[in-house]
């Protein structure tokens, strides 16, 4: 007991210091430790989630890149096939159009030739008639001066008979 007295052991002070420490623990816990540890944990959790998300996005990006390359290849292949088909179709259409045009041109040529022949025939016939009429009149005028009416009639008649064969 003497040692305790010499050391100044005082139960009141002991209890006061225990209370002091209790208050310090409470204040530090509620103002510093708990909120800061929660903040740190929340931030760590968010960071972990962000890293996971970033990894997920990276993985999705890789998948998308693979998908894009595949799709591009597929589209390239489809476009190539489509282009080939289009070329074939265009070639076939061209052939068809050319055939039709050739047929039409032939038809028009034939028709033109026919019309030309008809026109020539008609013009020939008209020229023949006109020429006959001119010759007859000319002959009449000549014969009026030198031939009797009977000779004229006879000669005109002969000429008329022979004229078509002469004109051929």
């Amino acid at each position: 007991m003497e040692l305790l007295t010499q050391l100044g052991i005082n139960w009141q002070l002991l209890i006061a210091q225990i209370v002091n420490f209790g208050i310090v623990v409470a204040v530090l816990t509620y103002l510093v430790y708990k909120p800061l540890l929660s903040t740190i944990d929340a931030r760590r959790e968010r960071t972990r989630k962000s890293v996971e998300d970033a990894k997920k996005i990276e993985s999705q990006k890789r998948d998308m890149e693979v998908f894009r390359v595949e799709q591009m290849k597929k589209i390239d292949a489809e476009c190539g096939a489509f282009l080939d088909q289009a070329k074939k179709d265009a070639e076939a259409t061209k052939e068809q159009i050319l055939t039709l045009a050739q047929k039409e041109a032939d038809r028009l040529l034939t028709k033109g030739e026919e019309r030309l022949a008809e026109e020539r025939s008609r013009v020939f016939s008209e020229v023949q008639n006109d020429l006959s009429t001119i010759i007859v009149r000319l002959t009449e005028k000549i014969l009026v001066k030198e031939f009797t009416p009977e000779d004229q009639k006879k000669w005109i008649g002969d000429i008329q008979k022979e004229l078509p064969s002469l004109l051929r």
Partner: protein
Amino acid sequence: MAAIEAPTLASEVIAHIGSFEVRNTLLMAWIAMAVLFVVSFLTWRTKYKEIPGRFQTFMEMIVEGFFDFWDSIIDDREQTRKIYPLVTSIFIFLVVANWMGILPGVGSILVRVHTDGHTSMIPLLRSMNADVNMTLAFALMSIIATQVFGIAALGVAPYMGKFLIAPWKDPIGCFVGLLEIVAEFAKIISFTFRLFGNIFAGEVLIVVISFLVPYIAPIPFLGLEIFVGFIQALVFSMLTAVFIKMATMMHGGHEEGHEMAHA
């Protein structure tokens, strides 16, 4: 030649509140508490933002640093979370009080007190841990907390089974159990006098050096006291963590803890 006025073993009473004695070490404890409360309040004022400012970053660094440090001893995050407030507060309170003990004015500002009819001059402030009452209070809380955590982790019967073993079942175990009980009390004494001895010795050393060579010479010793104050706070809190770790382990594993504690 003037005599050296070395500090007394017991702290001095500077005032009374009713029958309660206000001692200079208790006043120092209140000042240390006030410092901690101001820092806590400043931390609270940061609003614990998602994007922290400089002060919050500094506080987070300390808080997280302590958590990782205790976790390296306890090796169980849940258990670390439970003991964290106790051991961190022990360290912070002790280190702040120890460092405040070497501030100018501590031990040199004197007040006049009247006791038993005569007047004497005593220091207004004295290092908190240069008082056995203070270190004993810490030691008691540390050891009581150790028992509480041990019981909470293992249950009453398994935990008490470490101390109370029937002699007819295991005579050696019974003897070891008794030694364990003695060891628990020895821990209290060890905690109390290690901290008290170091801080009190530091005070005496500073007084003696200041008496012999008042200028310049005490400076290295003040640096030494800063170091001792830090180390003692660290040892006290770390041993508390180690004892709690030992107490929360099943019986087979506590030899390892003993080795750590005695190292």
